[in-house]
């Protein structure tokens, strides 16, 4: 019973972690940006979905759509207001750009979080599940919504895979992560590829934020924690490696679920943190990362 329960819950939460982390790692792989406003963007989409679905009575589906759109808009705002000005600034020396982007997005994430908290308080918001009802599998009653969440996550990740590996724009994206300079020599406009990455990233963060809101509920106070968990998963899997991030998401998801069920929910993140320190120390490039 308990084993099945852990398997199902762990699968859903891991899929959600994976979706959040894939966007984060894709962004780093292609444009070299570690976006510390990640949690803030997820929270903005989650709360937008909640407002549209609940306050305006538009229903869960329109709410979810609005949430994803909000994710894209916030993602572009992050790029145009924070990341691009720093990257183009002449006053910031090149070696320090990375640090400035980290700090800039960190501040921007705090601003998003505080703005959401100001307008809609930092109480946890739960969007009504996309489908109602309960499914019984292996003697365990689970909300059908949990299965739907896992399915949507994997569908989105599958679509992303098709986009990257089977379309021309996607292949350019892949090439940019390997050798941006070579790509510009072939006549591709790097800035347009970056726009594409931020758009994809916005969709992924938006979907993840909305699904999280239908699953566990989201509060603006969680923004930092969401960023930290995406960051840890991505480093655990190897920066820039999408398959590594998915693997790491499942390790983290199951480790947390097991700890919460078998030991105590209060220390659910502790084993993950210890594992993270060990992996980073013994194998700094992460599980599947390249150096």
């Amino acid at each position: 019973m308990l084993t099945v329960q852990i398997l199902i819950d762990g699968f859903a939460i891991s899929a959600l972690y994976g979706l959040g982390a894939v966007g984060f790692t894709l962004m780093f792989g292609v444009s070299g940006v570690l976006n510390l406003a990640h949690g803030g963007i997820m929270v903005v989409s989650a709360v937008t979905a909640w407002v549209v679905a609940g306050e305006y009575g538009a229903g869960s589906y329109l709410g979810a759509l609005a949430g994803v759109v909000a994710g894209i808009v916030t993602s572009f705002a992050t790029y145009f207001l924070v990341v691009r000005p720093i990257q183009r600034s002449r006053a910031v020396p090149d070696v320090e750009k990375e640090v400035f982007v980290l700090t800039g997005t960190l501040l921007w994430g705090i601003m998003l979080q505080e703005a959401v908290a100001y307008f809609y308080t930092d109480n946890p918001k739960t969007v009504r599940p996309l489908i109602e009802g309960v499914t019984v599998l292996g003697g365990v009653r689970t909300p059908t919504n949990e299965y739907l969440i896992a399915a949507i996550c994997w569908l989105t990740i599958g679509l992303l895979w098709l986009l990257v590996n089977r379309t021309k724009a996607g292949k350019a994206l892949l090439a940019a992560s390997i050798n941006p300079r070579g790509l510009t020599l072939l006549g591709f406009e790097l800035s347009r590829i970056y726009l594409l990455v931020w758009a994809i990233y916005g969709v992924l963060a938006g979907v993840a934020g909305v699904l999280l809101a239908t699953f566990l509920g989201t509060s603006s106070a969680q923004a930092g924690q969401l960023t930290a968990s995406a960051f840890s998963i991505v480093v655990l899997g190897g920066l820039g490696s999408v398959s590594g991030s998915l693997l790491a998401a499942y390790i983290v998801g199951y480790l947390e679920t097991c700890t919460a069920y078998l030991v105590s929910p209060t220390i659910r993140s502790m084993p993950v943190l210890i594992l993270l320190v060990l992996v980073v120390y013994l194998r700094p490039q992460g599980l599947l990362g390249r150096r």
Partner: protein
Amino acid sequence: MFASRQFWAAIVVVVLLAALPLWLSSYLLGVLTIGYYFGVFSMAWDLLFGFAGEVNFGPTFLTGLGAYAAGLLNAQGVDLPLCLLAGAGAAVIGGLALALPALRLSGPYFGLVTLVAVLLLQQCIIIFAGVTGGEIGLTMNDILSIDADTNYWIALGFMTVSGIILFGLSRSAVGLILQASGQDAVEAAALGFNITKHKLAAFGISAFFSGLAGAMMVFYLGTASVGIVVDIAIGVQVIIAAILGGRRTILGPAVGAVLLILAGEALRPLGQLSTFVVSAVALIVILFLPGGLLGRVLRPRGRA
């Protein structure tokens, strides 16, 4: 260096600050006192980050260790000066433990380790709530002083002394070697400098001041809690302060920290929005004045 205009300006500023209790209310003095301790946090962070180039996202790991080591000993009835020393010592041990991965990892990887270190410390404090007071906090038996003026002078004196030591260090040969190893470790090693030794020293010194400042601050406040000395949000504030004031200047971060704490108080009527405004201002400084407020004045021979 000591004959320069900046040196005399600094003396004038310190004398003026020392005279402030003549005019200011004890409320404002209290705010400034906290600001001075934050100034030390920021300066210590700047030595590690600005000079040694170690991306430390968790300055509160060191301050928290210092504060809690001092607080726990004090709860056992140990004298206050010994507690302060023990706090600084605990932080140095923590700093050296942190230096171990830092010698192998770089950039974002090390940044993550420091972040995780803070989260682990926070979890430990909450799990061992029976000893540490958990989320409510630990009440001290002793405090530094009950007089607002005395507390203010202690904090100002502490910040001034730390500032002199750290600034002197940053302008010495050690500081230059640290800076070189932060910018290009391989080349610095090729020039014959012992990078490992210098980095260990940087971690030790930075941890010493962070821990001592953390311990002194909790003895000023009379209580140690996660929200005051460990939380990631506090660490972010230390980092914002350093960048606001101007990284790699040591004195800039101290000025930034005092301004940040003052701004936090001044914006209190805005309620929840105050954090938003502070972050927005810091972001604007980063975008338009990347050297920080004092970057141009304090950086030796500003780069073109």
